[in-house]
């Protein structure tokens, strides 16, 4: 099988997985008890079953489940997730605005986490203080939950010292404020990534530097710096990149607690709040985007393997 056929096969499998996830989610939220209209009207006095029935009809919830499933799948093809029950806006628009916040957060956290982790991992095998830093601080950071780390940063840098805002997002039109508001959440998310990557990088470097080609490079008299950069680090980074891709894919919908602590309106908190009021269009749309993102990262990672190791695409 050629590389093109290999890529095509991976993409088709990915699309089939997205459709499966959508059908499972659609059925799951119908099975879970709780009615979106009753929840929506729970704070309105004098509401009886007649008003509930009228609103169910307005939202199309009175139609049989197969019809709603079919409408949902047809809508997906046009990227139309329907109208959010709670916000009365197209679910696609809401998700798009939240996705921008999530992607910015995740990409920045991943960038600083991965580069910082590789740097620290490299230093840990070259210097004694780097070794101590990674061995002592790494497990500490990994054992502290993100929301605790975030709360401590807010308490110290925002409420006590007043250096940075306590949370929220600022528009791109105010770039300085935009960056200031991102510092604490990005640090909160990036630190555990850096700790993980540093640990993996350290392990891989220690593994690779015992290989024959490293000994050969040293025997040829290349400077230590060149040997490290060209022969050790480059070879050690392949598994690091795999871990990085997984971290990135998993982050997109999993930043809920950090979003909550820093009042960031990202995709994770949108999904949680939508589930809590049974906003079906938003739940389905958010799950679609998160699963598509995760599956896409995996496909890219699979295809990368195909490039790096031609034997993979021939299987």
């Amino acid at each position, binding site marked *: 099988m050629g590389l093109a056929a290999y890529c095509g096969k991976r993409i088709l499998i990915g699309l089939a997985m997205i459709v499966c996830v959508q059908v499972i989610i659609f059925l799951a939220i119908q099975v879970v008890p709780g009615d979106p209209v009753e929840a929506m009207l729970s704070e309105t006095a004098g509401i009886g079953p007649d*008003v509930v029935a009228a609103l169910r009809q307005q939202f199309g919830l009175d139609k049989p489940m197969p019809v709603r499933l079919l409408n949902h799948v047809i809508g997906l093809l046009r990227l139309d997730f329907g109208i959010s029950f*709670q916000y009365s806006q197209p679910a696609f628009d809401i998700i798009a605005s939240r996705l921008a916040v999530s992607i910015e957060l995740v990409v920045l956290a991943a960038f600083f986490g991965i580069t910082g982790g590789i740097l620290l991992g490299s230093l840990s095998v070259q210097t004694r203080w780097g070794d101590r830093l990674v061995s002592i601080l790494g497990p500490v950071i990994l054992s502290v939950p993100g929301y605790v780390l975030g709360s401590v940063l807010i308490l110290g840098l925002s409420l006590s010292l007043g250096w940075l805002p306590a949370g*929220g997002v600022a528009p791109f039109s105010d770039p*300085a404020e935009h960056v200031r508001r991102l510092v604490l959440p990005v640090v909160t998310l990036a630190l555990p990534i850096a700790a993980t990557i540093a640990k993996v990088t350290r392990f891989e470097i220690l593994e690779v530097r015992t290989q024959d080609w490293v000994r050969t490079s040293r025997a040829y008299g290349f400077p230590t710096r060149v040997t490290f950069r060209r022969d050790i680090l480059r070879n050690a980074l392949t598994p690091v990149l795999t871990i990085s891709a997984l971290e990135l894919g998993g982050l997109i919908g999993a930043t809920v607690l950090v979003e909550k602590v820093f*009042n960031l309106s990202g995709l994770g908190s949108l999904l949680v709040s939508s589930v809590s009021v049974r906003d079906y269009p938003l739940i389905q749309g958010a799950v679609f985007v998160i699963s598509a993102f995760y599956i896409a990262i995996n496909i890219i990672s699979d295809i990368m393997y195909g490039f790096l190791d031609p034997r993979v695409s021939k299987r």
Partner: protein
Amino acid sequence: MKTRISCGMHRRTFLATAMGLVTLMAGFVPQVARAQDDGRMLTFGLSANVGNLIYGPSRGAAQFIVNQQLHRGLVKFDENGTVVPALAESFEAVDTSTYRFTLRKGLVFHDGTPIDSATVKASLEYLARRETGAAIYAALSTLEAIETPDAHTVLVRLSKPNASLLDYLADPNAGISPPAALAPGAVNWIGAGPFRLKANDSGVSLTLVKADTYYDKDAVALDGVKFIFYPDSSARANALIAGDVDMVDFVGWEDFERIEATPKLVLDAVPGPFVYTLFNTGRAPFDNPKVRQAIAYAINRDNVVAAAFYGHGNPLNGMPMSPGNDRYDPAMGELWSYDPDKARALLAEAGVAKGMKISLLTSSTYSFFRDMALSMQADLKAVGIDAELNAPDWPTYTSAKNGGNYDLAVAGGAPSVTGPVYMQAYAVGAPASSFGSYGYDASEIVAHIQAGEAIAGDEEARAEYAKAVRIIGDQVPFLPLAQRSQAFAYTDRVKGFRNIPGFLSITGTGYMIEKTSIR
């Protein structure tokens, strides 16, 4: 030639590093008072995301506050909770079923569209439609006709007397809206309120600026209000303390002390909405009024306040009453007391065996619901009732409550009217009223409340409401337990704002922003 500085660093590297450090330092300069930079703009940390405004339905307290800035009804509440003219320059109750409103001259919406009696008629008729699901549907379901004898006069005729119609018309969801908003799903951003929408950063903030079209624009001190959404109460309190916002609503009870201890911050807390217990009267044991009475004597309200509201609330031994309304009698607040011995005696009299198992429905979505149920569980245990907690999320809780899948349930109430008529929605049983105990027939209570509503004089009306309350005391169709503190908090630069005490803390206080200024 490459220049190297003394420590061996390249000049370009040094400059780049220096530039980076300067940029970084600029970002770290203390800017606590960020919200102060915006002149007479009030930066408000709002307790929920507000999506598109839709005309009619209630979508919670945060949406009420936004509605009250963009929209205006015929009447509104003032700082004392009294109904005062708004788009109507005057009003009169011809009788308890007929109200006449005279509109101000020259009224327009934010987009310049004129407002006349026909606009008002169309708006109110839309709210009276069942399928609108309007917050004031209960009041307008008895709408018989709206007459518009001229462009500035509106005559509202009801099929049943309703002395509280004006309260309903001051509800934040009853602003007069343009014809384009009167359709299911139509957005409703253009109103006749003191501020108009300038920017909607979906899911993040709403920026409102002073509307030149507002009938009382000279009395509005602020240039605008920026609502930033802070759904998490700790994040909201942090934002206020850090100076990111000037004001927040719905301060979490756990944050009261923290805010009070912060210099230059004001905590404006009043007794607000109440929490209560529902009974499934459709099945044993709570089909028996004696058992319901036993529960009324078994629950220690002080413990409920301590457990659910960190001590920030008032225990209730009877009906909660909104201050400033002359239709209440203080005796309505003294129906039961905490008396476990009496509770045990009543249970024995009703033939309830010791160790009876019941289900107690609450919700895990709100911590005060869960804590209130835990407090009740201990009190019930003390009188020999073994209550098993069922604490699902909010939609599951709502469905279980409306469907009668419980024995006892905890619930919260935030009436939008100040008068005793509010009791009707809580007395009438589900499924007819989603606020009431499942299966309860409240026809006798409703008859007295309706008789009270038909009487114009407060004293005579009070006697009718008292009859309804006596039946409630005896039958216990629902059991109010505590009135919780409802707080706004703001910096001391904010002036002229007042949290209206009582039920109106939720539905009326948003009107105070047009009277607010910021130094």
